[in-house]
């Protein structure tokens, strides 16, 4: 969060000085990126076909009907109709590292990842095409900030002298907006930087994609158009968003860095901040009926049974938790650093296990027929359930 520090230290400079600086920075950025414009943008190349694909870094896994689909480093998308025993590689037009994948049925799925890319598949994950990328995200963000700046400036213009306190506050926010605008302009020059960290769809039309530095985009047409949704959520420090999940009643939960927790009752337009009940990162949310659990750094787990109003802390796992899923029988499985994972059958406390690979897991999914596959830094691994594995 280096840009935050910069904002604090330079906040009291006269605005004109900062605008000059910004202009210089922008032009410099133009020179630098212009001069190092490479012939090759490797992320724009189709994903390589990889040998032993099941052993490569894989970051997310999900179910598409009876099929498992996993995504990972350099645009690798794999699918398995054998519960993870054998994998086939999908055709992907880009090599961005993919962090997240979701399917609403056996055919339709979306994947998102670094460089702000969003891909769609209509054939159960075998072929993919691009819907959105970080350049579009950068432009939308720049417009969004510009509008915010303009509206703030307008509001200040309209204030009269008696509202000095309010004016100070608005000027302060205007400064922030100016800074954010510089950053946004720079980001446009730099190219698609920030990763999406999760993508979620409620049905074939409505979806939400969230990611680093407060990235949040919505679609209402199955991803044909992705529109910035930052207006509906308060995140002034631009912390990362990590995970979105819905409970049985259609309430949406969003977790993030620095203990961020939000709830949306209208499919992701407006988000309401929950808590705070923790100050570390919450890497994931998993729901079971009306129950919602958030988990994250150093194995912390929090549970709410009243739709997110009150949260209770559960015993922490001895390792950070990066991913989780709910199986058909209601068992919640959380996976994390160093090959650690937790098994939580419905109505019972979690038991902690260690996979012999000792390599960090990022995500986990059941295949619908009783097998559970985790993915992470060492590729895919079947997780034994029930019996002790340590």
């Amino acid at each position, binding site marked *: 969060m280096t840009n935050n520090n910069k904002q604090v230290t330079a906040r009291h400079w006269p605005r004109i000085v900062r605008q000059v600086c910004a202009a210089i920075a922008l032009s410099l950025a133009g020179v630098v990126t212009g001069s190092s414009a490479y012939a090759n943008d490797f992320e724009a190349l189709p994903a390589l076909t990889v040998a032993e694909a099941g052993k490569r870094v894989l970051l997310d896994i999900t179910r598409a009907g009876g099929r498992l689909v996993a995504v990972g480093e350099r645009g690798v998308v794999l699918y398995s109709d054998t519960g993870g025993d054998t994998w086939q590689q999908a055709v992907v037009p880009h*090599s961005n590292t993919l962090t997240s994948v979701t399917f609403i049925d056996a055919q339709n799925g979306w994947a998102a990842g670094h460089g702000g890319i969003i891909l769609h598949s209509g054939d159960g994950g075998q072929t993919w095409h691009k819907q959105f990328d970080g350049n579009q995200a950068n432009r939308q963000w720049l417009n969004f900030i510009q509008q915010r700046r303009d509206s703030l400036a307008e509001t200040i213009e309209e204030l009269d002298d008696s509202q000095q306190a309010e004016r100070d506050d608005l000027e302060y926010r205007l400064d922030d907006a100016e800074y954010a605008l510089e950053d946004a302009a720079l980001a446009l020059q730099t190219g698609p930087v920030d990763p999406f960290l999760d993508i979620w769809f409620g049905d074939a039309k409505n979806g939400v994609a969230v990611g680093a530095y407060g990235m949040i985009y919505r679609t209402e047409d199955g991803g044909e158009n992705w529109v910035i949704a930052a207006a509906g959520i308060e995140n002034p420090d631009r912390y*990362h968003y990590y995970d979105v999940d819905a409970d049985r009643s259609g309430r949406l939960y969003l977790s993030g860095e620095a203990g961020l927790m939000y709830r949306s009752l209208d499919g992701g337009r407006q988000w309401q901040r929950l808590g705070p009940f923790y100050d570390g990162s919450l890497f994931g949310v998993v729901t079971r009926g009306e129950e919602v659990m958030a988990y994250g750094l150093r194995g912390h787990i929090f549970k709410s049974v009243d739709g997110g109003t009150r949260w209770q802390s559960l015993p922490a796992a001895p390792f950070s938790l990066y991913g989780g899923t709910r199986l058909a029988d209601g068992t919640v499985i959380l996976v994390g650093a160093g090959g650690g994972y937790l098994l939580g059958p419905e109505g019972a406390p979690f038991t902690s296990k260690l996979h012999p690979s000792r390599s960090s897991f990022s995500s986990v999914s059941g295949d619908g027929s009783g097998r559970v596959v985790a993915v992470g830094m060492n590729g895919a691994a079947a997780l034994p359930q029930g019996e002790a594995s340590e």
Partner: protein
Amino acid sequence: MSSEESLTLTEEDGRLRPFLGALLLRARAPLILLFVILTAFFGWQLRGLRPDASFEKMIPVSHPYIVNFLENREDLSGLGNAVRIIVENKNGDIFSREFQQTLQEITDEVFYINGVDRAGLQSLWTPNVRWLEVTEEGFVGGAVIPDDYDGSPQALEKLRANTLKSGQIGRLVANNFRSTIIVAPLVERDPKTGERLDYQQLSADLEALVRDKYQTEDLRIHITGFAKLVGDLIDGASLVGTFFAVAFVITAVMLFLYSRCHWSTFAALLCSTVAVVWQLGLLPIMGLGLDPYSMLVPFLVFAVGISHSVQIINRFAHLSHSAVDTREAAKLTFVRLSKPGFIALLSDGVGFLTLRVIDIPVIQELALIASTGIAVLVLTNLILLPLVLSYTGISQRCHRYRDDKLNSEYRHWHQLSAASLPRNAKLIVAACTVLFAGGWWLAQQQKIGDLDPGAPELRPHSRYNLDTAFLTDNYSTSTDVFVVMAHTPPQQCGNYQSLAAIDHFQAVMENVPGVQSALSLVDISKLVIMGMNEGNPQWHALSRNQYILNNSLSRVPSNLLNTDCSMVPVILFLEDHKADTLDQVIAAAEGFTEQYNSEHISFRLAAGNAGVEAATNIVIRTAQNRMLIWVYGVVIVLCLLNFRSLKITACIILPLMLTSLLGQALMAMLGIGVKVATLPVIALGVGIGVDYGIYIYTALAHFLREGQDLRSAYFSALKTSGTAVAFTGLTLAVGVGTWIYSPIKFQADMGLMLTFMFFWNMVGALLVLPALAWLFGAKPHQQVTSAADGKA
């Protein structure tokens, strides 16, 4: 050469050689004194003779890959010059009180060994091996050994937990937790004295202070690393002295059995030994050391010296026996043998010199040293030996033996001479054709490069290679490393575009069969970015944000980029270093560079042991044919000059070619690849082997000219020079044959191949040559005008 040798000077002897001979014998006392003084001088020079295993000499220094590697050598020096000491608990895992105590003691011991970079030393007991964890407040961490470690079960449990968090599994701690490594990086130069690291001393220290001191039934020590390899190589090479002694004794016994004369035996051994002393003494003067390849040369010089001595003592004994006084006999010996001896030595020397066309310094040096040795032999064996003999004379026993020999009927030579009869000759030619075809077919399957796992210099079951195998079996590491250097403009190596290109290159290379994994600062960058984001694997990726990248690169180990950030080594870990594997790696990497090299980033091959080996293979593949063309070209020209007949030249060269081909077939059958060590063997074999043919055919031509039929002429030729040729073949074979028992694999391969070549060349000259003579229609009188006059 003549069976009825004239005891007085004849027309054939010319005028120069009798003059020189008389001069030499008149001055024999001062001359011998001069030889004594020179021998003492060269003997004194031996003090400066150092074993030398310079890595740089064994590689093709002008190949583009090696040029690239040498240009970046300083920047790559941090890669891997470390010794790894693996401490294994035979009875359980490493988390026991006793084991940890020993491990601590060994770590302390290694810390004080000369040459170890103490700041870089790593083991579970050094403070630089840490565990790290991200908490809500930021990073927390500590040394893997808990501060309050007391050996209690609780402390050991804490140690186990810290080890897991340290990320050292597969690196410092074995995947099965039964062993752990002490990594000792080495300093190339002593910071105090500025002297180069003495690998042999370091290796000896490691043996004495670590392995011998701490290894028990329950605790095994394994040591790997380039320094240990060099140490073991030099240790192994010191056995060469023993081999020389064995070869010396066997040769002495054979000489005595051949001559039955202790004086002749003594004189031949003395002069050949003097040649070896001179040759070795010349090395420090020429600024050379004795590397494991040039150690072959003293054996060759000694053996060649003995084989020429055999000619000389044979002739001297003959002349002395014919009642000429020893002084006159010595003079006549010099007069009669200095010319053929000189021509034979010349062909040896020139044959060796052709090796200089191979662009690998160690082979070029071998060629130079061997030629020098041959030049020395001209002085010691053609001049000194007759002088010594003029003092010693021959013993009485020798006289009696000569009588016996003259009265025998040379039955074995008589039988052998039947090889020139049409029926036998047809059989021999047919058999040779079959051998030729079979050899050709097998030779096609000859492999380039080293074929065994582990360090190719040592035998597969040597202790070093077993230790290396233990390392690769139990840790996530490979010893076959291929490095590609990614060059950028200065300060640009950490750019997103540079890193993305490297990342893509790694992805491409990881798909090549035989490549286990790839490593560069890109991996470190990704790991640090992931670490800065609380270890979440979703962040395991490069960022286009230069601030984030710079931050991620601030902790990159210095060996993963150079000082001005213009070169990044990309390390490919391979499954093995077989030529096929290397070819695939090269093809893939070259393909990538063709497509993506630009002014922003260019990937250049190749460093690392596998990269060097790949370049060596390329050079050797082309050098093999070039060398064969040269060496055969030279001996064919020498033969043509000497005999002025294509048919005779064919009689001499064809058996050599058969031997060369069978040598290649043997290599294919035994799984010996063509490599730096085995490449010179064929040239050495041909260079020396041509002597046999020249001697035999010279004698044959002489008797044919006298009007004998082919068989009688060949029988007479065998009587005069057959014994000497057979003896020469055997002494040469014995001289290098002892090498087969060398602990150094390439010396053993060289010894085996040379023994085979020398022996088969002799068989070819004695058995195949007469058959070919029949085939090409050698008849009495026919060659009189075209053949040389037989003086040579």
